[in-house]
């Protein structure tokens, strides 16, 4: 169970983004987070991932907890061990090709077995329909293709929590279905920020961020 307990975050005094916001996400459930542009969806994901420190409140997952007092090492360790992220801007490494981008987290985790890495990357790439792109530089890909590469990179280490920030914004309906089935069947907790009604309707729960608060719909 992932508990987000009365999280507050503001960037300056006037701009209070989250105000004692809370939500509970059961393990293995797939939830959507919606809200107007600039309401703080990305900020919420960043806090869950330990990229940002909340001003107040606590994130609890199993026996881990992140608070405003957690230092950057604790936060990055949490991220390293539990979280996979598909960020809004994707952040693929332009100098690497698709294969290298997808395999990168495995290498960071110290996996040395090349055959294992190749099999794993190929398997995921086949499922996401990007197998023929593996040798291309990511700078040559379309946004939709990049989104799938970022998804593949996020799930290759099978993190228990998957955070996706608008992962389908550039996909056609057919590809969106492929990606959504990947999310729905993912063996872990998935939180998707989206405006896309198809995505929202396939999630078990939907949370709305409004005026710094999170409400369940």
């Amino acid at each position, binding site marked *: 169970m992932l508990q987000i307990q009365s999280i507050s975050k503001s960037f300056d005094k006037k701009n209070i983004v989250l105000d004692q916001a809370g939500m509970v996400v059961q393990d293995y459930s797939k939830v959507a987070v919606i809200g107007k542009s600039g309401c703080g969806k990305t900020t919420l994901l*960043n806090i869950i991932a330990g990229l940002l420190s909340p001003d107040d409140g606590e994130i609890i997952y199993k026996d881990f907890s992140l608070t405003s007092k957690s230092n950057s090492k604790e936060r990055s360790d949490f991220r390293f061990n539990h979280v996979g992220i598909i960020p809004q801007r994707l952040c693929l490494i332009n100098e690497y090709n698709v294969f290298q981008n997808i395999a990168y987290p495995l290498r*960071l985790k110290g996996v040395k077995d090349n055959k294992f890495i190749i099999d794993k990357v190929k398997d995921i790439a086949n499922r996401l329909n990007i197998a023929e792109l593996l040798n291309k530089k990511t700078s040559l890909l379309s946004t939709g293709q990049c989104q799938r590469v970022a998804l593949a990179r996020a799930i290759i280490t099978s993190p228990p929590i998957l955070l996706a*920030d608008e992962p389908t914004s550039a996909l056609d309906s057919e590809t969106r279905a492929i990606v959504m089935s990947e999310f729905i069947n993912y063996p872990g907790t998935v939180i998707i920020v989206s405006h896309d009604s198809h995505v929202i309707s396939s999630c078990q729960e939907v949370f709305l961020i409004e005026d710094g608060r999170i409400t369940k719909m």
Partner: protein
Amino acid sequence: MKTMVDRKKLLIIFALLTFLFAVFNVVFESRGKYISPDDYHASNSSGWVRLNYQVNLADLHGKKIDTLKAAYTALSSENYFEIHNQFVYIPFFEGKEIFLYGYEEGHADDSIYQHEDIVFSGVKTVQLSHNALSRFNISLWRGEFFPDANYQDGDMVPILLGYEYKGVFDIGDELEADFIEKLLKFKVIGILNKDSHIMMQGYPLYLDRYIVMPSINCLYSPATPEEDLFQVRHYVNKLEGWYEYNNSSQLKVLKNKISAINETLPGRITLLSLERPTMIDSIFSSMIILEQAASWVSILLAILLSVLCPLIYFRLQLKNLSLLCTNVLLGINYKNILIKNILLFLSILALSNLSVLAILIMIGITFTKWILVIDTLAVTTLILLNFLFLKESNLISYMGGLHLAANTKHF
């Protein structure tokens, strides 16, 4: 796109400032260094100037030795000091390595050579005119000073030894020495007190490891071409003496003398200003290789280095941005990322700096202290900019879709 423009502007301003700084220093450096006597204006009414005689030796020997001697006579006065730092070769030298020429710079070995079973050692020696000894308050530990006001060539040359020669040679010892390819006989007549020193170009020259010989005068005309060559070389040196003036009219007299001498001699005598050493001078004096040739190449290299380095680095940094973000995203601690990045950056810079310096030294180009100052300045600025640029919050905003530029606060 806004940041790109801002960063470009920043780089251009930085490059321009570096360039201006370099130009300013070139102008500043060359001022008052080699000036014709007519243009020489002393900033103080008293001080030192050094004469610098630029001439092709081939134009002199065979016919000009008398003119040289006449020029020397015209110049010599109580205010004209001869302080030459010309080593002598001594066969079968018994002293330690510390007395050899180049010992302090670590190439004493280069001053030893063998000629038909005789090993010659280049031994540090200064040649002083009589007034120089009293001008610098040099005192004796044992023995006596040179007997005559100006020592004449031909007989035994009396020498004084620095304090560290104590126990190596004694008063009364006689040595043979090759002084600019002329064989002389030396006789030790005294040993100087510890820490005796003379001032050269504002820096003290300690005589403890030196032989002090009088700057000899050659009274007879040379009978052989070899003797002629020796006298020419010796008198060219003697014309590069130091002049101490107490008021501007003394300086004016000197200038007139030099102008008159320049009429009679090939080549040209100019004046070198001798300003007091500044702090930076003292710090860098050991690194500076003084040379007349303008160090344009080194300046250009330094400018290139200081401008190209930030450009290349920021280009790389922009390319790196996605890699850095991905690392943050995948849970690598920001501090590790930063440390790695800075180390990488420093090593790139150190390498380029070292290679530039190595090239300069290899091709024998002088580099002045300013090159190092510019370089150091560039390095420090870059490290500071690097810190500004590589903030964790910048990377995180970048991922969230907030373009770096949107957060101008961060810069």
